[in-house]
């Protein structure tokens, strides 16, 4: 396999990053997964974390170096990830299991297979156009389907974050599976959370994902989404993968898995490097430093009397 891949997650203006994402590949199979823990719910980021970790570990167990049946793998692994979240809630005596959206994609034998629950999306961009994308499991999407809302109204609808399917929670997820899609040279698959697609329109997404270099286009796209969202910016995360025919002379950053050992995996689990999170969250001002020192010295003197 030959492809170029880029992933990034940003905290936006929120206190926590509840998005989790990872990709992993063996010689013959590639997994990409994105999960968005649900903030209003207890332990949302835990749900997202369990989901991504569970799916990644299952992939590494089964893709040696190929999955027997990618669709079956996706259906089994997402059900089990859902159960792993419920187990966690049970262990911790939580009243309600935490919840997360998920979108996961497998590429193998030149075909892509994906599945999702909730409103994290997968886009297929082909020849400068969105060839397909997942349909959100949200109330607004249902209303749009029934002609009750148009896209513009949906984008501002107060209930736009309400999803009716997800992993965890009190209801069994309704996971939706794609047909298998034969990939063509230059196709881009992009998985992202609503923090990315929410502020941007299709045009901006298409333009960025059609650019020759996704390694530059994706961070620029995230900048743009952050800029538009402003102070209410949600966590935003994206994995984008451009597929290359084995014959083409691809981009310098492309990965070729041809020479990988059969039992080898390369995995990238987003670990939220501080360098990209806004300084304000971690930074303490000179004033804070002085205060902390004064407080410590006051305690020292109080106790050393």
């Amino acid at each position, binding site marked *: 396999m030959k492809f170029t891949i880029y992933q990034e997650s940003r905290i936006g203006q929120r206190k926590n*990053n509840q998005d989790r994402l990872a990709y992993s590949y063996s010689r013959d199979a590639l997994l990409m997964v994105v999960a968005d823990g649900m903030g209003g719910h207890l332990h949302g980021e835990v749900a997202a974390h369990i989901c991504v970790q569970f799916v990644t570990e299952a992939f590494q167990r089964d893709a040696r170096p190929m999955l027997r049946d990618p669709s079956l793998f996706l259906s089994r692994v997402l059900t089990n990830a859902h159960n792993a979240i419920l187990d966690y809630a049970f262990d*911790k005596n939580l009243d309600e299991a935490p919840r997360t959206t998920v979108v996961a994609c497998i590429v193998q034998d030149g075909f892509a297979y994906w599945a999702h629950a909730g409103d994290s999306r997968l886009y297929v961009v082909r020849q400068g156009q969105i060839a397909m994308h997942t349909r959100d499991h949200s109330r607004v999407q249902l209303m749009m389907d029934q002609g009750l809302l148009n896209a513009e109204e949906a984008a501002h609808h107060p209930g736009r974050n309400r999803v009716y399917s997800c992993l965890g929670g009190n209801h069994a997820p309704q996971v939706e599976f794609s047909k298998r899609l034969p990939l063509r040279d230059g196709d881009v698959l992009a998985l992202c959370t609503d923090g990315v697609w929410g502020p941007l329109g299709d045009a901006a997404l298409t333009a960025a994902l059609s650019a020759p270099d996704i390694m530059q286009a994706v961070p620029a796209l995230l900048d743009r989404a952050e800029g538009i969202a402003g102070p209410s910016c949600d966590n935003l995360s994206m994995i984008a993968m451009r597929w290359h025919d084995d014959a083409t002379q691809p981009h310098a950053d492309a990965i070729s898995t041809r020479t990988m050992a059969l039992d080898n995996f390369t995995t990238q689990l987003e*670990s*939220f*490097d*501080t*360098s990209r*999170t806004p*300084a304000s*969250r*971690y*930074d*303490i001002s000179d004033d*804070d*430093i*002085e205060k*902390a*020192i004064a*407080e*410590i*010295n006051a*305690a*020292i003197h109080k*106790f*050393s009397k």
Partner: protein
Amino acid sequence: MPAQTNCPLPAGFQLDQYRIERQLSLGGFSIVYLAHDREGSPVAIKEYLPNSLALRKEGEFEPQVSDEHMPAFRYGMKCFFEEGRSLAKLMHPNVVQVLNFFRANGTVYMVMKFERGRTLHDYIQKHRGEVSERFIRIVFTRMLNGLREVHAHKLLHLDIKPSNIYLRNDGTPVLLDFGAARQTLMSDQPILKPMYTPGFASPEQFEHRDALGPWSDIYSVGASLHACITGNAPQRSDERVKDDTVVPLRRTHAAHYSAQLLDTIDWCLKLDPLARPQSVYSLQKSLIRRDEDGDAVHAGLFGDLGARLKSFIGRT
């Protein structure tokens, strides 16, 4: 980012009201110096200097921190303050005493009472395989007085291990390095994160951080006791959870130590937090218990240390 070593401040350097004499240690997060205050009394000064984020070059005083690392550097400083805060609240003969906290050279410093002696780690290395039962019972019972005080203030140490237990020359132990308090804040700070030492950390420190409690420090005490007896930490607890290869000491070391002591250690090292002693006090009770030979550890150890220990250490 490549691991780099930071240059210590030079001997004779005037740091605030203190004069640096020499470097005592270099950790991943800080440098500790021996220095003298204005009256000439010795102090130990801990300088916040995480080597993954800040670099002090030869001949310079201010460490360089890149813009990229500045937020993380400042954040780590917050955690260094946590150590100061924890220690400042405690006033106990078995917990190192903080004397001052100040800012200089673009970083921060914690001044502690200088203690003469060596770490339990050094002691174990020197006396491999022949650390006596009496020594173990006495030192740990005393050290646990300090830990009890820590827990009484609703703090956890979370980095108890032989190199953070200091033995004064008179044989009394002092708990050092409350740096692990920083961890609690740090769950999503990969650059600064793994500060604990694997073989001594409890399983819940790896996995279920919301299950942390006094029993977590007790696991580390058990691992330190284990090191006294075998010379090494037990298998890392995150691996034990998957495949436990730890053999009860009762089966391997019964020739040299009483069954009661070995059982106590095995008790502390239970993987299930609820199966361990739940409080320092219950562990102390077990450590001072008269063992089969009738060799009792003085109950007075709960209070002040007698001259016994002094002569005892003097002999070794």
